[in-house]
């Protein structure tokens, strides 16, 4: 899948050379290396996995095997406005799942995906620590309390307006 919001191949190469220059060439350092790659790009671009693999003398499937094991790593970029839907116990119990489904439907992407224009990405997270407001959705840094499937559209439209206004100012 080509993702527009993904980082350009060339930029990945350049940044990676910088990152890897600071990393020990040792297989046991794989996870910290992947972490710094993700810190730099927000996700693990395909090119980065290939580069890291050859840097450590591993095959790409080995690196991918490790990376895909952990929830920490993602393979698709974050949108400009990352949406997180809480699926912690409290939010789950009061219908977080329905809100998540609504989000998937409205955005036409699946969990872990990103919209075609690269604006929004969708993830599920476990308890963000304000269970009293369940079900909770977070876009960027803003919290949307007591969500329902019908409030999804409203929230997204408002977000669009806010972004437009912010761009104008």
């Amino acid at each position: 899948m080509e993702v527009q919001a993904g980082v350009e191949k060339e930029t990945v190469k350049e940044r990676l050379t910088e990152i890897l220059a600071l990393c020990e060439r040792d297989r046991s350092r794989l996870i910290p290396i992947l972490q710094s790659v993700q810190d730099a790009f927000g996700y693990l671009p395909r090119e980065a996995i290939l580069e890291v693999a050859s840097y450590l003398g591993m095959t790409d499937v080995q690196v991918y095997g490790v990376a895909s094991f952990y929830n920490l790593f993602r393979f698709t970029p974050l949108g400009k406005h990352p949406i997180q839907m809480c699926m912690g116990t409290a939010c789950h119990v009061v219908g977080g799942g329905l809100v998540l489904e609504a989000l998937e439907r409205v955005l036409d992407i699946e969990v872990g995906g990103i919209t075609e224009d690269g604006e929004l990405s969708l993830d599920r997270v476990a308890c963000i620590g304000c269970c009293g407001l369940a079900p909770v959705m977070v876009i960027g840094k803003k919290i949307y309390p007591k969500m329902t499937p019908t409030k999804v559209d409203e929230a997204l439209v408002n977000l669009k307006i806010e972004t437009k206004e912010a761009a104008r100012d």
Partner: protein
Amino acid sequence: MMDLVELTIDDTQVKAEPGTKILKAALDAGIYIPNLCYISEADLPFGACRLCYVEVEGRGLVTSCTQPVEDGMVVHTKTPEVNKLRRTAFKLFIAYHDLDCRACWKNKRCELQRLAARVKVKLKTPEDFRGLPTDFIPLDTTNPFITYDPNRCILCGKCVWVCNKKSGQPIIDFAYRGYETRLALSSDISLIKEKCSSCGECVITCPTAALKPESSLGSTVSLAGGG
């Protein structure tokens, strides 16, 4: 030559070199113990399938592919406890396996079918494991030589081992976690096409129908596959 170790397996006196695993000693002596993930040439046993359980007197239940022989050891391969464990292990294999055997290209040549008869378990989704997810996972057809069917993969790890051995590095390896574990062949991180020499070893070693040779794999691998 080192002194041989003597042990008893199912009332038969068996001699084996020290360090040999019980499973190998038994198989060499013509005593069959069900096994699926065992590779005789591998240095380290993978120990994933749990079918090779035996009971060692004074020690209890052990996987015979990992347990080295000892002098005077008394091993039983068919006690009720052993059979029960073995059956559970086997049921876990088929709990989320695509069991439409008649439509499967490997029907009648499948190791899983053979084992089902051995451990006396019917090849239908076991009642006690109904709750496992059984969604159909799309096949991986990105490699022109091999098609990977995760629905029929039992994660025995044999292809990973063989590929590693053949090419010095695994081009096939596991990815993801838990129920989602499957092979990262190529659709995730497509490179196998460039690196795979299409030797077909993985297809030959696959006990089930998870790795299927495509005609482009050529004559090196007979389309009969392994087993």
